[in-house]
């Protein structure tokens, strides 16, 4: 190891060669070797650190282009997914559109579109459509009232499925409730509010077939019955107002509430009875409500 030679600076006039010589004779301590090793290793590490810095610079130089490329790829993928989803929703929205209610009585109009809200489905987003159905139509239609009872037992797997439940899955449940409630309704005639009695009848019929609702007396005023029910007054009022329309509409309504196979049988019986016009209207309604349901050859 080479040490620095002592270099006196005579020009400074602050030198003492005798003291300097004696000082050089004093101890020549050196740092311990472990310090030498540590420092030299750190210095060499600094060299490798420099190469790491160079690599990091390279990475930093490519970071921006790579980030931009990743953003572009993600954006394109997202746009494609959203476009595809919008296309699916547009296809789904078509059968959800409510049919024109021209020439149909209020009672029939309500029953003709049992699972659909009064507002246009196409005017609101899909999710809000579902919310709207749940919030506004449950107490207003007996179809949805039955569906609400059935909905407690069947979880809705997704918004898409919930917005258009398959007929084969939901109809039997509602049909059972309807069949059980039908007998009670026939006893009631038209005295009690239909929605309230049917709702109660269906909910009880699902639990026990023998538990029919207590029929109200024929002369019982609607206003007396309505507060006893848990249904909101706004939901009872349209039904109560439509009750005096007549037996024809009520009969048509009852037909429309039947399960598909019974409905078709009823249409055939109407034909046999010579009520061709009524059978035709009912068949048209059936086709509108169950467009995919296979018709028997006699009705095609």
């Amino acid at each position: 190891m080479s040490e620095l030679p002592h270099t006196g600076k005579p020009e400074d006039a602050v030198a003492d060669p005798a003291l300097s010589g004696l000082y050089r004779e004093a101890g020549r301590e050196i740092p311990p070797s472990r310090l030498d090793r540590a420092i030299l290793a750190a210095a060499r590490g600094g060299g490798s650190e420099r190469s790491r810095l160079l690599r990091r610079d390279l990475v930093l130089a490519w970071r921006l282009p790579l980030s931009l490329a990743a953003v572009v790829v993600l954006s394109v993928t997202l746009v494609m997914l959203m476009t595809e989803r919008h296309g699916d929703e547009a296809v789904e929205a078509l059968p959800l559109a409510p049919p024109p209610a021209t020439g149909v009585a209020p009672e029939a109009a309500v029953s003709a579109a049992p699972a659909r809200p009064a507002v246009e489905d196409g005017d609101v987003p899909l999710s809000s459509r579902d919310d709207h159905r749940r919030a506004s139509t449950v107490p207003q239609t007996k179809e949805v009232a039955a569906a609400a009872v059935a909905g407690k037992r069947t979880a809705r797997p997704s918004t898409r499925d919930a917005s258009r439940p398959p007929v084969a899955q939901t109809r039997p449940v509602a049909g059972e409730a309807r069949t059980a409630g039908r007998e009670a309704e026939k006893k009631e005639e038209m005295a009690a509010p239909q929605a309230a009695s049917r709702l109660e009848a269906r909910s009880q019929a699902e639990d026990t077939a023998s538990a029919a609702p207590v029929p109200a007396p024929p002369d019982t005023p609607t206003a007396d019955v309505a507060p006893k029910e848990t249904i909101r007054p706004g939901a009872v009022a349209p039904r109560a107002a439509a009750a005096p329309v007549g037996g024809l509409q009520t009969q048509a309504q009852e037909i429309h509430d039947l399960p598909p196979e019974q409905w078709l049988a009823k249409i055939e019986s109407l034909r046999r009875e010579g009520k061709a016009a009524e059978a035709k209207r009912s068949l048209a309604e059936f086709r509108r409500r169950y467009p995919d349901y296979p018709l028997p050859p006699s009705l095609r």
Partner: protein
Amino acid sequence: MNRDSVADEELMARYRDGDAGAFEVLYNRHRGGLYRYLLRSSGSAATAEELFQDVWMNLVRARASYAATAKFTTYLYRLAHNRLIDHYRRRPQGVPVSFEDDCPELDTLALDPSGQPDARYDTKQKAERLLALLAELPEAQREAFLLREEAGLSVEDIAQATGVNRETAKSRLRYALANLRSGMRGYL
């Protein structure tokens, strides 16, 4: 080209550019002087080792910003001086008053050689006497002497390394020599 004949500044520039071997040459040149400067300034081997390692680590970390605007030795001992002042600040006593700009020129060693010098004193005993006197010097004077003897710095370089003006550095060095001479009277 033999690295031993390359100037310190060139070696440091090479190390800055990634030549670890250049650092090793630099280190071997200055390790002893820097260590003794710290050892005799702090008076403790443990403290000297800690400060010594810190100084070199600071040099390694600061290599990228090194510019040969001054002598490398001045640069290195400037790092050492700053580290030493930090060490002083952490002590309960704080930074020695002798480091103030107005150099205490009236400070003189209390050492008074007792009795007559003995001709039997050999060089080793004289050297030990000198080191004892050096330890008794005010810190600033001691530092100036050490920078002169260990780093070979001129008065100008000492001023630059210690951050004082040239006259202060010269005064410190002059008084250090005077005190040592006084203490070594009869030994030399």
